[in-house]
């Protein structure tokens, strides 16, 4: 239960509410009872769509009822004409839209929408993108909707440059929009790739981004979104794989290797050390002594360095 404020009620109000709920519960139990019976008898018909629809409109988290609707759709696809099916699917999309308005954060509802679109002969992806625009107007941080948007973009091959433009507009209307900054971090390396840069994006683009993010935190220094993005732009999050230090002690026959990133040393992955082009033998252990095959610090005590 999220964000439901506890309200003090009188005994009378409680009694009215109790009666109301009792009535609702009776209807709910009757409907779910019928639904499960029909499923058992394989009656995948309009009536079953109507019944599951009634319950889901009230409680869209009932995942099993979405599954029953999917079964019904797959059954109907076998027996109905293409035109009939197109009509049923479009009605389903309207129904889903109303469910999403009631509960825009239901995993089951969004997933069912993907299912319906993927089962349509001619899905209207433009309309879907429009729907995302509307839902992101209501709540610009709804990650379900952002994820659905990314699916729509992928399926309908929306140019990703247009998506970048979309995030620019979103950020202009509100700097404090972490979801948009996040999306940019995914889009920029695709649109302006530069594998030699630690962030994977062309330098001149990064400079422009830097200016934009500076505007954001000058406007509102307490806003976190811009600062996280800023750190990413500076490329401080990534470390290149290098040998940071190699120590060899002849009197102790000991070699220590330190790397900037953990390396895997185990049964199929050996670390080899060469001395004047001669491979020298030894066995490595992880300095932490925790048995993990990944470490940034490896030591070998029995190197033969006397040769």
């Amino acid at each position, binding site marked *: 239960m999220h964000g439901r404020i506890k309200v003090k009620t009188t005994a009378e109000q409680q009694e009215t509410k109790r009666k109301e709920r009792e009535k609702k519960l009776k209807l709910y139990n009757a409907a779910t009872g019928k639904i499960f019976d029909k499923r058992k008898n394989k009656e995948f018909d309009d009536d079953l769509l109507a019944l599951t629809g009634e319950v889901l409109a009230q409680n869209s988290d009932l995942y099993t009822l979405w599954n029953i609707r999917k079964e019904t759709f797959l059954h109907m696809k076998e027996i109905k004409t293409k035109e009939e099916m197109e009509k049923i699917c479009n009605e389903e999309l309207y129904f889903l839209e109303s469910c999403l308005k009631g509960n825009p954060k239901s995993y089951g509802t969004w997933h069912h929408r993907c299912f319906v679109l993927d089962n349509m002969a001619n899905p209207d992806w433009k309309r879907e993108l429009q729907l995302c625009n509307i839902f992101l107007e209501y709540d610009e941080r709804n990650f379900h909707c952002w*994820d659905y948007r990314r699916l729509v973009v992928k399926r309908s091959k929306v140019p990703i440059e247009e998506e970048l433009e979309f995030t620019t507009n979103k950020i202009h209307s509100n700097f404090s929009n972490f979801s948009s900054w996040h999306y940019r971090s995914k889009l920029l390396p695709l649109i302006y790739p530069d594998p030699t840069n630690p962030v994977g994006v062309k330098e001149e683009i990064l400079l422009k981004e830097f200016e934009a993010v500076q505007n954001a935190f000058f406007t509102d220094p307490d806003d976190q979104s811009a600062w996280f993005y800023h750190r990413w732009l500076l490329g401080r999050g990534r470390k290149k794989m290098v040998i940071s230090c190699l120590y060899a002690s002849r009197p102790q026959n000991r070699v220590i290797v330190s790397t900037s990133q953990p390396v895997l040393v185990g049964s199929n992955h050996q670390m080899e050390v060469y001395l004047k082009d001669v491979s020298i033998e030894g066995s490595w252990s992880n300095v932490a002594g925790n048995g993990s095959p990944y470490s940034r610090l490896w030591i070998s005590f029995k190197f033969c360095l006397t040769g």
Partner: protein
Amino acid sequence: MGSPVKDVSIPENAPKTLLLQKHCDYIAAYGSKKDEYEYCMTEYLRMSGIYWGLTVMDLMGQLDKMNKQEVLDFVHQCQHECGGVGASIGHDPHLLYTLSAVQIVTLYDAQDTLDVEKLVQFVKDLQQEDGSFVGDKWGEVDTRFSFCAVACLALLGRLNEVNIDKAVDFILSCMNFDGGFGCRPGSESHSGQIYCCLGMLSIVGRLHHVNADMLGWWLCERQLPSGGLNGRPEKLPDVCYSWWVLASLKIIGKIHWIDKEKLVRFILACQDEETGGFADRPGDVVDPFHTLFGITGLSLLGEQILKPVNPVFCMPEETIRKAGIKLELLT
């Protein structure tokens, strides 16, 4: 113009001490209201609800107040022919509820309640070519399900049944610019998903892939002036993030990066003195979900009256130790 910080204020008269017995009474009574509206409307997550209730009772040292036989009979009846477990009798099998069922039988040390072979096969069959896991046969992919799958198998001692390398690769493909993780590749970081991904990597011993400093910064910034934690930047605090964020920080060895006293104060203020239980925020309606995560948060913060909780499985540490499970945690 700066946007105002989203937060709540803690009322002067909010509870300041742990009302342990009230919470036990609240949870113990919850299952006895089976004909009530609220109870029936949450049937679609019953299996998880039972796991929440049992775990919180165990952490409070009162697991014996719950009806063990009734619970185990219910769990048994919810397993399907395919091996997967549904949220309730007649509800479809799903990884979310399969994990809850495995957690329940582990708490009770009663694995024979379930057909383990079939269950393992169910989990195995949900792994996809790219290493990800779908929640059920309808194909929704989510990093939550990667955690569920690996956690199930670890509790059953059957981790070797799936392709761990591929499962790890998929998790890493969901890593973001802030060091966090989202639902799928491309998705925004979210504390709940971060917990799942870190938990998964901890179970399989691959936490070295995580940039603990960068992620730790993002996670500790979840703390707001009220002391409460939110799940993403610019969101309201919520007691359940005392778990998702705190457990994540614990896994990467950075729990000391948040202000403990302020968080304890926030969690305690979310208790309901009349009914027992915790709400998401001070003054809201309580439920078993937030009650568990209020208690586990306090346990992670070192509240001595509670049993220590395991940060990966969200179960008593002693249960995980007894099951012989070894986890990787960063220090």
